[in-house]
């Protein structure tokens, strides 16, 4: 838990350095190379970038916590509404990917473990591993070509028509979520598989089998519960990865999420937007890690015992 807070802190420092210190003279950047030096100084003073770094950092964080994310250089309006909108859209995309990949990934891992070293296991393990190592935009392009251009089953852009209902939105989100699905599938399936193998091999499973419990009960009650615990942690750590993937996927599919917001802000050097976008996903990551830690402790009988003492 504390670790994700350290991550968040590190990220905020990096964002602060990258967005406010390294680029140099902010006033000059906004006003352009031909502006009068006095105007630049005045703007720097208004923006507060001529104050000591520590003060600037503290003010920046304090404002962010209060919901004041600054003013976009490009849109000349507050950043917060853009970030909130984009975050909502990204959540939708991430939710579709997660809802698809968690059960299917776990199922894949379980099936592979139950067919250990048989062809089905090889196909799932090798296939999962191969798609996991490919960049999302590569699998994305290939999927667009197959399902969007050749078969024409799915729209190639994630921008759905205005006032689209839930199912229309879902329909537009399937193709963008597939590359994320493919990358995550390999990780989750591999964790579930090794967790299963370990659990199947354990003493408690042997005991359960030897005392005559039906195979089905053994799998559900004894094996799965223990096998899936480490998988939960992996799923949580993958949210960090998922965020990186969103930047690429949302750009590829022209989806108005937090990833494409960061990308557009980076291209336009819109630093307030860029900083807020990155810090927001840092917070999302920290929260996801907290939830995973909590779930883990709830589901793990050993941790529960420890806290009773």
């Amino acid at each position, binding site marked *: 838990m504390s*670790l*994700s807070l*350290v*991550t968040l*802190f*590190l*990220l905020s420092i*990096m*964002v602060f*350095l*990258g*967005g406010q210190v*390294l*680029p140099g003279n902010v006033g000059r950047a906004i006003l352009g190379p031909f502006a009068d030096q006095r105007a630049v100084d005045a703007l720097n003073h208004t923006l507060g970038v001529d104050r000591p770094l520590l003060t600037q950092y503290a003010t920046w964080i304090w404002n962010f916590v209060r919901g004041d994310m600054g003013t976009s250089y490009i849109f000349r309006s507050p950043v917060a509404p853009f970030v909130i909108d984009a975050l909502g859209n990204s959540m939708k995309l991430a939710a579709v990917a997660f809802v698809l990949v968690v059960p299917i990934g776990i199922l894949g891992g379980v099936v592979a473990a139950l067919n250990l070293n048989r062809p089905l296991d090889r196909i799932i393990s090798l296939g999962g*591993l*191969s798609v*996991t*190592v*490919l*960049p*999302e*935009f*590569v699998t994305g*392009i*290939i999927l*667009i*070509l197959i399902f*969007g*251009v*050749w078969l024409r089953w799915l729209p*190639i*852009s994630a921008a759905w028509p205005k006032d689209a209902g839930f199912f229309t939105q879902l329909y537009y989100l399937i193709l963008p979520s597939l590359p994320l699905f493919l990358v995550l599938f390999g990780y989750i399936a591999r964790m579930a598989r090794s967790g299963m193998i370990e659990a199947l091999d354990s003493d408690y499973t042997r005991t359960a089998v030897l005392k005559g419990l039906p195979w089905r009960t053994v799998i559900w009650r004894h094996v799965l519960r223990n096998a899936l615990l480490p998988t939960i942690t992996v799923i949580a*750590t993958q949210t*960090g*990865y998922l*965020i*990186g*993937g969103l*930047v*690429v996927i949302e*750009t*590829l599919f022209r989806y108005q999420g937090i990833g494409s917001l*960061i*990308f557009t802000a*980076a*291209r336009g*050097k819109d630093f307030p937007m*860029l900083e807020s976008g*990155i810090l927001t*996903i*840092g917070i999302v*990551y920290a929260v996801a*890690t907290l939830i995973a830690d909590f779930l883990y402790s709830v589901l793990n009988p050993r941790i529960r015992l420890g806290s009773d003492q």
Partner: protein
Amino acid sequence: MSAVQTTSPTQDDTRRRSPMADVFFSLMRSRTFLVGLVIVLFWVACALFGEHFAPYDPLADDIINALAPPSSEHWFGTDQIGRDVFSRVIVGSRDILTVAPLATLLATIAGTALGLLTGYFRGIVDDVVSRILEAFMAIPVVIVALLAIVALGTSKATVIIVIGLSFAPIIARTVRSAVLAERELDYVAAAQLRHESAFHTMFVEILPNVIPPILVETTVRLGYAIFAVATLSFMGFGIQPPSPDWGLSISSNYGMIGGGFWWTVLFDALAIASLVIGVNLVADGVHGALND
């Protein structure tokens, strides 16, 4: 991939180091390794000598023949300004095969030094540094790279440094855990009793013994470096035009994908896919051979 378990050599006195020849022969027997090696060598050859056997100049436009579908004249068709896609795919391997290995090399050097220091000295410095590195590893490389490149401006050197430094903590972690096991062994104690300097003990005594896990981690990282460089180039923050780089070509052509011009992106995508998978097969083979 990142969860490579580094098995430290057994601690009893009868441990025998498998000679280089052993590793070599076991690599030559590994089908995974050989298939990967062939793919990687093919692209290395393209990077080195590509322009000699590419049928066209990868940068020469030919507007009249723009967006021509694959034919006997242009095997992979032509792009929006008539450049030959086949030639571009061949020569496009060059930049990524320069930037990614250099980034990996930087990551390996920095990560090995960090891992040796934290593993050897342990204590409070190790605790603090390890926590910070761990926290840093949770930040996606794309985000770190984006921030750094926006702040510093893009160039091949920036990309190499950013990716190299982002990967260094992961290599440091692997090296550290290998060093932690090594430093309990007698030869380290002997070196310390001889009053060898800490630097000598780390880099002359311990380093040669932790080469195998470093080698495995480096090959795995190379796959990820290619992943990262290609992604950054696709987003416009990596290799810059007019390079025929694969990621860059995809980013400048995928806008027309709806028009059915599939050949302008498919071959570049397949090229990246084959290179990444090739490197990962090699990494898998090396991992297998060194852990036998």
